[in-house]
């Protein structure tokens, strides 16, 4: 009995070490990212005053680009989305919509709206995909093509689009997203202006819920009404403004949101396109590109820019949020597991030595550590292993630190883009940034742990997140 007691005590002590190290590692790194981003985003915002978008728009040197829109059962939004995309301000733009075997009226509505006719075109698949059922075009809208294919998932749909794409760069865009008119131009700017070989460029995804939308355009930016949506606004600000910006500056970009990102087509083809073995094909592609570049000794660059904006609907209901977060966490685990050789591998530079370990320990395993902490700390208290005041102080510290980081992201938004116009909006955001760590964070943590468990148990299915309709 005494032996078991000793083992228990040792285990508890070890866990305490793990949770404290996790706390300091995660918050330390987040603080560094926040500080780095504060400077970087502010500076970027200043540099925008002489960005010269007109020159980019008018230059014959600006490379043509194709927007790939994978769609599955998007009948309610697809026509407006495509109309909005066709209005994108870009000199040489093509749009390919890939209907991934929808069972609703998506195809019929597209055919009717754009007067498309079915054509028997040549399909040259450089990436293996499910069968294509038909190509639809209107010779009067030559830059629009709709492809109907058998259902094979988002990566498969994107691969069909890449196979048919003719331009050197393509932009992936979710069918339910709204692109700001000049967003693609802004996304391409770092590619055009960079002296290095830039193969991926990501932009910021902002939350559409609550905003006023007219003719596929956000005409008034407002905060959503419900708490769960508002918490997500704060989360997105934190994730995009200081998470991705910070990693970009440190040269450790491991995630580019597939909802809105530009990729170099030939590079993606060489890496094998979007793969099917994870549920977050966007992150997986970024990791694949890093591995490919290291393997072939290619010097490449991936950038994240905070001014190109794409608006997306976030889940308005808690169950939908759960689905989304489980998938993201499961995909993160799958991708990191698949590419475990990158861990502490100096061949990958900052990615291998800092970014990958951080994502593995803090973002993937960390969720389980934090989750267990909510049980182990009370247990340790129960057995008198940790003094009560110290445990309480530690819990307070973790909550306060979380608030500090969230408030920091709101400040970052305030210092730069100020998309939410009223002072009231700012105050609401600050309140939600403080409150986020009490209740919401724990709820999301639960979903993340479920995602890890699904990864461990080999769960494969994709949970569709449905939206209530913005505007």
């Amino acid at each position, binding site marked *: 009995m005494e032996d078991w007691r000793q083992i228990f005590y040792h285990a508890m002590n070890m866990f305490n070490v793990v949770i404290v190290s996790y706390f300091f590692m995660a918050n330390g790194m987040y603080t560094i990212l926040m500080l780095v981003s504060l400077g970087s985003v502010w500076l970027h915002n*200043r540099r925008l005053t*002489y960005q010269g978008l007109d020159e980019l728009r008018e230059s014959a040197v600006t490379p043509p680009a194709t927007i790939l829109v994978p769609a599955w059962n998007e009948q309610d939004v697809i026509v407006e989305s495509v109309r909005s995309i066709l209005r994108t301000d870009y000199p040489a733009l093509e749009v390919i919509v890939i209907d991934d075997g929808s069972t609703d009226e998506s195809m019929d509505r597209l055919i009717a709206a754009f007067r498309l006719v079915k054509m*028997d075109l040549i399909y040259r698949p450089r990436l293996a995909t499910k069968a294509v059922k038909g190509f639809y075009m209107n010779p*009067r809208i030559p830059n629009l093509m709709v492809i109907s294919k058998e259902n094979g998932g988002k990566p498969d749909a994107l691969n069909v689009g890449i196979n048919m794409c003719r331009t050197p760069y393509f932009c992936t865009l979710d069918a339910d997203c709204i692109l700001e008119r000049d967003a693609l131009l802004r996304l391409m700017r770092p590619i055009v202006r960079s*002296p290095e070989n830039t193969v991926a460029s990501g932009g910021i995804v902002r939350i559409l819920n609550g905003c006023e939308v007219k003719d596929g355009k956000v005409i008034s930016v407002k905060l959503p009404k419900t708490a769960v949506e508002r918490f997500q606004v704060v989360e997105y600000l934190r994730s995009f403004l200081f998470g991705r910006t910070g990693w970009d500056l440190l040269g450790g970009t491991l995630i580019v949101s597939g909802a809105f990102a530009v990729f170099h087509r030939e590079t993606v083809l060489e890496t094998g396109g979007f793969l099917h073995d994870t549920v977050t094909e966007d992150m997986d592609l970024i990791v694949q590109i890093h591995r490919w570049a290291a393997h072939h000794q290619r010097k490449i660059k991936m950038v994240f820019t905070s001014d190109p904006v794409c608006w997306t609907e976030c889940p308005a209901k808690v169950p939908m949020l759960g689905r989304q977060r489980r998938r993201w966490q499961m995909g993160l685990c799958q991708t990191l597991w698949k590419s475990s050789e990158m861990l502490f591998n100096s061949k990958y530079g900052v990615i291998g030595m800092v970014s990958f370990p951080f994502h593995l320990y803090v973002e993937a395993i960390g969720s389980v550590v934090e989750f267990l902490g909510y049980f182990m700390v009370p247990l340790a208290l129960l057995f008198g292993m940790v003094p009560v005041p110290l445990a309480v102080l530690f819990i307070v510290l973790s909550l306060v630190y979380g608030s500090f980081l969230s408030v920091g992201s*709101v400040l970052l938004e305030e210092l730069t883009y100020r998309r939410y116009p009223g*002072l009231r909006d700012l105050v609401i955001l600050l309140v939600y940034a403080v409150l986020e760590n009490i209740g919401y964070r724990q709820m999301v943590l639960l979903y993340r742990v479920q995602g890890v468990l699904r990864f461990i148990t080999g769960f494969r299915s994709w949970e569709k997140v449905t939206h209530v309709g913005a505007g």
Partner: protein
Amino acid sequence: MPVLIEHIYEIVVAIVITVLLGTGALIIMAVARRQRRESYFRRIDDLRQRYGPVIASMLSQKLEYERGRDVLKGISGVDRDYVLEQLCLEKKPTPDQVPILRRLCEDLGLVRLWQQRLSGQLGIASIRDTLASPEGILHRVGRLHFLLRAKAADNLGIIQHRASWPLLVKALEDPHPDVQAVAVRSLAAIQEPASFGPLVERLHAVILKPSTRLSLRSIKTALISFPLKQAVGLIPSLTHAHRRIRFLATDIIREMVERQAAWDEDFVLDAQVFPAELGNIFLGQLCFDENPDVRARSAPVISFLADPRSTPVLLTLLEDAQWFVRLHAVRALAKRKFLSQAPQVAQRLTDPHWMVREAAARTLLVFGRVGSDQLAGHFLATQDRYSQEQIADEIQRAGLVPNMLAQYATEAEGSEGKVIEQLVQMGKTSYVVSVLQTTSDQRLRRKFLMNFGRYLDPQIRGWVQQVATEETDPNLRTLAQTVIRPATKQGES
């Protein structure tokens, strides 16, 4: 005092208090910043309302220049220059507004200020000015001065301040790449002939010194925007030993030529716009260059040359070993003046590379009736499956099917009918059937039913079935019912 484990409470409490204070400070900063910005925007809006119409009237020449200028001179305050800059350059000026705006910026002292900034004559702002002006922090921190230099370079480019070109050329050597990039862009906007040379030098530097932090595309964009007569400045680059420099120089001239040609349908590169020396380099050297990229990019330029040697050279490039050289040559021939070369272009319909086949089909379509006859003739005659597929693809993409069907309906004997038959035999019936489903031309439907109604193609069968059951015209319905019977029997057998 050494930090001991006994001090853990104090340490954690200290961290908690620090973080709490930090959070509070961030909240106060955010709110204070918002309030400050709101008051700043109120001031700007107020100024905009007061002075915006004055500037607009001056630019549209509705208000006497001197009166408007004197009104604007009345703006004062620590941030006067910043506010004036905001008001004057708020909107991109149209070409006819640029001279007025340039004069206004000169008279208001903004040009002198920008020139000083660009040449690095920047003092460190006082703390009072730092806090009072939105740009104050930039003046205060020396490491941020590049933002002011870059903005100054940008402003001089917007108003196309020709006298500032030497300063901008000097800025090409600025330590910060942003300033270099903006200077390149502004030089392109000003288009001072004397600045073309330094830009070409930068192009060489970017290629020859990999440490240069300027984008090649930025320089290229700038050079392309110069008038074509500046192309002579690229002669040393066209004959340079470095293959990449030759390629870029050729490509820049190609872009310059194509930009000019886009405005003028009958554009020809004659001796007036394109010196003979340049033409000879293209016809005598570049089209035979060891670098295939150079050969490829030379083809479009050669196609515009008013020189008898150009067509034979293009035909040589049409047979080049590299597929992308052939591609560029085929595309270069897509001009009506090369109508007589249609048979040579048609030969490329069997090219091993699909992009060349596609380009050949498109070029033939540019030739009009002669080209489409060539295309149809080749489509019907060739045994090359890839070539047939490519032509079928192009016929559909170009939207030719409805016209072909219309002509097929009216003409007794014509190639359209045979092309339609070929499409049907290849199973390329989707477009054909969709036209048949929507057309009101009963003659076309009848003729197609009679000629092709018995084909076993599933889409045609579906359409015939539809006509046989749903058609309101009894004659057509009966015809469909007649043709479907043997087809069904044949299908069953």
